[in-house]
């Protein structure tokens, strides 16, 4: 169920260049699943006006806390980054359909491929897959070393490969370079990141079961405004999907890329 709640800032840390880790406490944590997102009003003022959709990087139901990792780049996220311990943040959520963790059987292997600010939701996903006895392999792409994060956390959960466009950390190039050279064995893949990456993955693993998380400019965040629609591949059954309420995660091949 989607709720609106003033959540309390537990901590806010900068963990890489312009990348912030914000932990909030509140009741709506109890309803969260990996791959869902929250819609955040960064200030009480009219400027900026709209909410910001931000993914969920870590869920801690025992303590009613969740963590989001975001890039403070635009007007909204820069304001969000000024929040300090004890302050309240207006959160609407959890929203959307997340990653199906049950898609991989116990003892199976999942490939998690993330790009940039698409990496955070894969952390909670990996935690929950590992908790179910699924082995995870992580391939994480970033622009440069200074914007990489969570190496320790991902490495603790499974085999982790870093890729940077400039080669400053890990393999130079794109995630597909690692997939080519390492040729990992797996049952199901999950991904979140820029569209070209999602498209490349679909083409790379035509025979595999896979789930992709999409990003699109949003208005309401609950499916009412039709801002974030994507064309589907099956135009007969349903010609569009809404990223916010039908997604953000879709089975591979659903969205026309």
């Amino acid at each position, binding site marked *: *169920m989607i709720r609106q709640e003033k959540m309390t800032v537990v901590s806010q840390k900068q963990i890489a260049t312009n990348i912030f880790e914000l932990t909030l406490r509140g009741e709506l944590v109890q309803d969260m699943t990996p791959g869902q997102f929250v819609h955040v009003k960064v200030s009480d003022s009219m400027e900026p006006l709209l909410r910001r959709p931000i993914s969920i990087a870590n869920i801690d139901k025992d303590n009613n806390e969740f963590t989001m990792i975001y890039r403070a780049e635009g007007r909204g996220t820069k304001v969000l980054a000024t929040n300090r311990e004890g302050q309240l943040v207006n959160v609407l959520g959890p929203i959307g359909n997340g990653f199906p963790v049950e898609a991989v059987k116990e003892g199976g292997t999942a490939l998690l491929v993330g790009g940039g600010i698409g990496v955070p939701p894969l952390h909670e996903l990996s935690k929950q897959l590992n908790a179910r006895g699924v082995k995870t392999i992580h391939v994480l792409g970033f622009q440069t070393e200074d914007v990489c994060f969570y190496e320790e956390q991902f490495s603790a959960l499974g085999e982790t490969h870093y890729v940077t466009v400039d080669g400053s950390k890990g393999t130079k190039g794109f995630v597909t370079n690692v997939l080519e050279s390492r040729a990992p064995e797996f049952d199901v893949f999950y991904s979140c990141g820029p569209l070209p990456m999602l498209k490349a993955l679909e083409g790379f693993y035509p025979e595999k079961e896979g789930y992709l998380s999409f990003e699109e400019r949003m208005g309401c965040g609950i499916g009412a*405004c039709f801002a974030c629609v994507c064309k589907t591949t099956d135009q007969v059954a349903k010609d569009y999907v809404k990223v916010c309420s039908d997604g953000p995660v879709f089975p591979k091949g659903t969205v026309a890329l």
Partner: protein
Amino acid sequence: MSRLTIQLPGLDLKNPIMPASGCFGFGREYAQLYDLSKLGAIMIKATTVETRPGNPTPRVAETAAGMLNAIGLQNPGIEKVMNEELKFLEAYDVPIIANVAGTETADYVEVARRISTAPNVKALELNISCPNVKCGGIQFGTDPATARELVKAVKAASEVPVYVKLSPNVTNIVEIAQAVEAGGADGITMINTLIGMRLDERTGKPVIANGTGGLSGPAVKPVAIRMVYEVYKAVNIPIIGMGGVTEAQDVIDFMSAGASAVAVGTANFVDHFVCPTIIDELPAKLDALGVEHISEIIGRSHRS
């Protein structure tokens, strides 16, 4: 809550607050958040004869205290709207105002004829002001003679009162308001969005795929208030005012300028509970003004 009731042609409103068309879909999503029966009315998303896929994305862009949108009247078409969406809304005790759009007069007439037979559709809102579609929409709303003739045709076809949604993208909105009144309109809803554009900082190109979009949100409120104020003086049919409403004081402002009821648009995206919140806050506003019933404030800006 009898302090908030408002009677308008076709509409018996528990309170003067309703979500604006295009900002509330067909109510399903908000129904998960609160009881839609609390609302005065619901203005549903524009309906056309055929299914419309809408515009390419990006369809929205944020601006200072506002936003631009160019959704492009995406909707599933009259048949699905009647069989599925309006049926769903029958579960709630709330009158529906059906926003009607089309490419040519015959489309408007057909949608009006059919949708006005739905048991919960108590009024139509003729969309002659959508700035985001290439054909139909705004060109009907910028020429007084064209607007008048369209209203006449739709009035003849509709089973329920017809309100006309005016575009602010005109030189003289009073002229258009008088034309739709002459065409037989039962009421006016105003304003639709103001045509705007935002450029990408890096490329210098428009952010919205459509190029232009309709500006809404708190930024447009002064324009809307001015237009309601002017139109109120010039016509004898009721006005449902809208444009940047985010709190109870905005409702008081619109009604003071001459609106008999008020629609809330963009604010539904920011605070998803804004409509019920405003409804709850209105009685205290009336107390502060020393007013017993909300209808007493309609047009008070104009009283000597």
